[in-house]
C-alpha cells in the first residue's frame, strides 16, 4: 500500500467512522485496533473522544514510523497472510479487551479480504467488538455513467485508485460481510455529488445539465440510494456466516420463463378456477404462478387454498399462495413481482382468460426480442355472473369478441390512454428487480398503465399480433370501473401525466417522424400559424382551474349551504371550516381537498337532501 496522508475532517470518511463509533460504542472500554491504519488519521480522536487505547496495523514502514512519532502503537502486518496477521494482532492486544475495530479504505487493496474479515469476526465475537469499515463505492454515478459509455479512468487515489484489486458496491459489500460473519447495524456513508471521477466535467454522462445525464440519473436514482455515495462507511457486529459472498449469483440459476402474478380477493372463486384451468392447459408449461391473496378473510382464504389444492400435482407444485393483508390494489402487484422468479412476469387477474398458447407466444417473442416488454393481441368480451338450478356460481359470456385494442403497441398513443390490458403484457423481471421500476402504490387505478409506460420507456415493447387473451368486461358485477369513482380515475390519470413530465422520455426508433407529423398537423389545424404548443404547465393549469371551479361550485351550492349547521357544530368542537385558498393550491392539493370534501359528513348529508328533494339542487348557483 502507498502512503495516503489524508487529514481527518468531520465530513470525510474519518469523521464518519468516529461519528459511528461515538454513536454506537460510547462508554465501551478497551483497545481500539485499526487494520490497515496507514498514517492513522483517526488515532487522536480514538484516544481523545473515545478514551481508548489506539493500536494501528499496517504494512507500510513509513506510515508506522509517523504513527510512532505521534505516540501511538503501530505494528507491521501483512494482510496477504491472514494466519500471521492474526498472530500479530493477538500479540499486540495481549489479553486486553478489544472495544472496537476499524478497517478504513483497506479491503479494496487486498485479495484476502474475505478471509481477513472472517478472522476478524471470530476475534471480535469473544469481545463483542463492532467493526467499522469503509470502502470506495464503484457504483458512484460518475464511474458508472462513464463506464456505460466506455470510459474507465484509473487515478493515483480515489474511487478508481490504480492499486485497487477488489471493487465494492453496496450490495456486494453486504454479501462479502455476511459471508464473513458480519452483520450491518449502522451506516454513515460519505456522499459526493461530484466525485474525483467527475471528469471531463462536460462529458454528457456526468455533466449535470445534459439530457443524457438526466436520463441516466432518473434510472440510477430509482435503483438505490448510492448514486452519489463516494465511500460506504458501515458498522457491523460479529455473528454467524450466511450467504454465498459477492462472486456467486444464484439469481442467474435456472428459473422458469414466466412468473404469472394473479391478484385475488377470494371473491371470485369460480373465475379463479377458470384462470387456473387456462394455465394448467397451456401448451408451454414453463411458468410458475404466484397467487397474491389480498386481504383474504379466513373463509375466502380457505376457498382459495382449496382451489389450489384441487389442481393436479404438476400444476400445484408451481403455485405459491402469498398472503398480503395491507395496501391498496396496487400493493399485491409489487409483492408478486418481488416474489417472482421467472425471466418475465405477467399479470393475470383472477377474472381474465388466456388462450392455450399465451405462454408459448410470449416465449417466442422473448426469443426474438430479449429484454423487451412483450405484448400479444387481446380482445375484450362482456360477461355476466350466472347460477343455474343445479350449478354452483359461475359466469356466462354475453357479447362477441371485441377487437378494441390495437394489435401493435404505439408509445405515443399510450401517452394519451392505456390500450394494453395487463393480461396482454409480460415484463422482463430485471426491469423490476434490477432497475427498481415498481408499481406506484399511490395510484388506486391505472397502476398498470403507469407501470407499462415507465417500463416501455426503458425496455421498448415488442408486439405479436396473435390473440392470446380475453379481457373480461363485467356486466351486473363488480369491477374496478364500478368500485372507483370518475374523480379517482381522473386524478390518477393526471398523476401519471405529471410523473411522465417530470422525467426524460425515451422513445423508440421512428418516433421522430410520428412527432414531426403530429406537430405539423397541430400547426396546420391552428390556421397554419405556429401556435403555442401544448405544454405541461398549461395543461396542469387547465386541470387545476377546472378543479377549483368544481370545488367552488360545490361550496356555493344550496345543498352545501343547507348543511352549514353541521360545520358550525364541528367548528365549536375545534374543527374550523374556512373557505379554502383555492388559488394557492396546486394539482395534488386540490385533488386531496376535493377528496376530503366528497368524503365529508356534510357532503353526504347534502347528497341525501338532493335525493329527497328535486327542489334542492346541489349544483351550484353562481355568485
Amino acid at each position, binding site marked *: 500500500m502507498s502512503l495516503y496522508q489524508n487529514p481527518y475532517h468531520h465530513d470525510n470518511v474519518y469523521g464518519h467512522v468516529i461519528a459511528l463509533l461515538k454513536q454506537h460504542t460510547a462508554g465501551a472500554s478497551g483497545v481500539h485496533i485499526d487494520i490497515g491504519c496507514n498514517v492513522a488519521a483517526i488515532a487522536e480522536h480514538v484516544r481523545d473522544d473515545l478514551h481508548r487505547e489506539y493500536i494501528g496495523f499496517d504494512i507500510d514502514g513509513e506510515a508506522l514510523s509517523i504513527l510512532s512519532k505521534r505516540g501511538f502503537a503501530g505494528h507491521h502486518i501483512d494482510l496477504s497472510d491472514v494466519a500471521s496477521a492474526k498472530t500479530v494482532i493477538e500479540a499486540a492486544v495481549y489479553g486486553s479487551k478489544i472495544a472496537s475495530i476499524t478497517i478504513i479504505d483497506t479491503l479494496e487493496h487486498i485479495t484476502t479480504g474475505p478471509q481477513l474479515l472472517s478472522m476478524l469476526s471470530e476475534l471480535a465475537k469473544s469481545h463483542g467488538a463492532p467493526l467499522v469499515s469503509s470502502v470506495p463505492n464503484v457504483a458512484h454515478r460518475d464511474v458508472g455513467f462513464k463506464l456505460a459509455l466506455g470510459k474507465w479512468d484509473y487515478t493515483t487515489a480515489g474511487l478508481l485508485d490504480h492499486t485497487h484489486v477488489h471493487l465494492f458496491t453496496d450490495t456486494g459489500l453486504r454479501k462479502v460481510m455476511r459471508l464473513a460473519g458480519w452483520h450491518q447495524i449502522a451506516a454513515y456513508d460519505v456522499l459526493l455529488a461530484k466525485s474525483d471521477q467527475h471528469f471531463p466535467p462536460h462529458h454528457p454522462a456526468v455533466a449535470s445539465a445534459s439530457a443524457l445525464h438526466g436520463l441516466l440519473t432518473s434510472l440510477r436514482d430509482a435503483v438505490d440510494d448510492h448514486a452519489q455515495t463516494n465511500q460506504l462507511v458501515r458498522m457491523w457486529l460479529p455473528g454467524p456466516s450466511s450467504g454465498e459472498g459477492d462472486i456467486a449469483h444464484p439469481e442467474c440459476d435456472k428459473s422458469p420463463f414466466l412468473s404469472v402474478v394473479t391478484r385475488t380477493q377470494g371473491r371470485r372463486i369460480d373465475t379463479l378456477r377458470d384462470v387456473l384451468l387456462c394455465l394448467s392447459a397451456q401448451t408451454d408449461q414453463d411458468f410458475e404462478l404466484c397467487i397474491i391473496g389480498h386481504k383474504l378473510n379466513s373463509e375466502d382464504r380457505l376457498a382459495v387454498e382449496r382451489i389450489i389444492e384441487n389442481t393436479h400435482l404438476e400444476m400445484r407444485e408451481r403455485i405459491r399462495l402469498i398472503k398480503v393483508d395491507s395496501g391498496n390494489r396496487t400493493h399485491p402487484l409489487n409483492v408478486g413481482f418481488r416474489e417472482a422468479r421467472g425471466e418475465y412476469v405477467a399479470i393475470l387477474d383472477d377474472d381474465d382468460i388466456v388462450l*392455450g398458447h399465451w405462454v408459448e407466444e410470449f416465449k417466442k417473442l422473448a426469443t426474438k426480442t430479449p429484454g423487451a416488454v412483450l405484448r400479444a393481441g387481446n380482445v375484450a368480451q362482456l360477461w355476466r355472473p350466472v*347460477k343455474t338450478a*343445479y350449478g354452483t356460481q359461475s359466469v356466462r*359470456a354475453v357479447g362477441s369478441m371485441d377487437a378494441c385494442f390495437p394489435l401493435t403497441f404505439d408509445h405515443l398513443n399510450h401517452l394519451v390512454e392505456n390500450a394494453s390490458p395487463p393480461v396482454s403484457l409480460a415484463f422482463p423481471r430485471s426491469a423490476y428487480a434490477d432497475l427498481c421500476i415498481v408499481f406506484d402504490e399511490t395510484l388506486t387505478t391505472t397502476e398498470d398503465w403507469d407501470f407499462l409506460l415507465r417500463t416501455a420507456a426503458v425496455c421498448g415493447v415488442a408486439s405479436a399480433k396473435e390473440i392470446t387473451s380475453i379481457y373480461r368486461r363485467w356486466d351486473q358485477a363488480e369491477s374496478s370501473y364500478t368500485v372507483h369513482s370518475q374523480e379517482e380515475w381522473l386524478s390518477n390519470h393526471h398523476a401519471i401525466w405529471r410523473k411522465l413530465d417530470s422525467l426524460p422520455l425515451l422513445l423508440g426508433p421512428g418516433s421522430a417522424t410520428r412527432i414531426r407529423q403530429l406537430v405539423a398537423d397541430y400547426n396546420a389545424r391552428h390556421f397554419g400559424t405556429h401556435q403555442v404548443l401544448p405544454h405541461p404547465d398549461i395543461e396542469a393549469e387547465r386541470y387545476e382551474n377546472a378543479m377549483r371551479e368544481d370545488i367552488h361550485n360545490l361550496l356555493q351550492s344550496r345543498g352545501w349551504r343547507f348543511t352549514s349547521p353541521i360545520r358550525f357544530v364541528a367548528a365549536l368542537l375545534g374543527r374550523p371550516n374556512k373557505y379554502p385558498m383555492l388559488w394557492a393550491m396546486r394539482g395534488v392539493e386540490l385533488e386531496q381537498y376535493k377528496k376530503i370534501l366528497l368524503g365529508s359528513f356534510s357532503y353526504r348529508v347534502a347528497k341525501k337532501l338532493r335525493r329527497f328533494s328535486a327542489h334542492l339542487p346541489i349544483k351550484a348557483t353562481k355568485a
Partner: protein
Amino acid sequence: MKKKIPINKVGHVRIHSVLYGNELDRILTTIRHLNRAADLAIGAGAVASVTLVYGDSSPTPTFSKDDIESIRAQSPALACVDYLFFDSNLGSAKGHNALLAYADEMTEAGTVTDHVLIMNPDVMLAPDALIELVRPFQDPLTGIVEARQLPIEHPKDYDKSTGETGWATTACALIRMDVLHKLSGFDSESFFLYCDDVDFSWRARLNGYKVIYQPSAAVFHDKRLGPQGQWAPTSSERYYSAEAALLMAYKYSRLDIVERLLKTFATSTESHLNKAAESYIQRKKDGRLPEAIDAAGKVAHFEGDFYTKHRFGL
C-alpha cells in the same frame, strides 16, 4: 358461512374420446386433468368409478403398449385405461358408436357403465368439472349435461335458471348410458364429424329428455382466434359443417332449408360448399338420406346457420 350445495351421485362413468392425429403430449396433459377430476369426484362421492377409453382413428397408432402402461401407472384415480386402434378414420359418430359397442361388451363381462362422458381428446377438465357435470342428473329427466368451454365459450343460448339448452356439443358432455342405448348411439350413417351431437340432442329431447348446459362445469378446449377476434374454422371443418347442415335440414323435415342451402352452396364460389352440395345430391341418388323425423318441428330449431338461438356472434 357459504351454503354448500349437495353432491349428486351417478355411479360408474366411462370416458370416451376419439383420437385423430393428436399430439401425445397434449393427450397426456388431458389425462392429468382427467385423473385429478376423477380423483376429486370419487372422493366427493359424485361417481363410483371412472374408466377412460380411447378410440384411435389415426393412420398409425398414437399410443404404444408402454405408453398405455405408463398412463395407467400415472393415473391411479382411473379404474381402467383402454385403447382401441380403429385402423381407419371412422370420424366422430362412428368412432363413438364403436366405443359404445365396446362398452356393451365390457358390461357383458361385468363392468358396469351408468354414464358416458364424451369428450374431445384435447379437452382439459377443471378439477371439479365431473362433480359439477353430475349435479343436474338429480332431475330424472336429464339426459345430457354439457360443460362450459374455455377459453371461448360456445355462444348458443341456454336458460339462465334451469340450464336447459337446445342441444349439447359433445366436445365434453356427460350422457346417461340408458339414453345412449335408447337412441342407439349417434347417427353415424348421416354424420361424419359435425352435427352428430345436435342430432343426438334433438332425438333425446324428442324422447322427453332434457339437455342441460352446466356453466359451472368448466373445461378447456384449445381454440384460437383470428386477428379480429373471430373464430376461424379450418376448410375441412367448414366442409363437414356444410355437409351436415344439409343432412340436418333433411332429417328434421325442413326441405325448404335444404332447397335454400343447396341453391346457395351450388352457386357459391367456395369450393367446399360446392363439394358439400354435390355430396348431398349423390347421397340422395344413392338413397342414403336419413329418415325424416320431427315433422311437427317439436325440437328442431334452425336459426340462420345455427341450430339454436345464439347469445352473440363469434
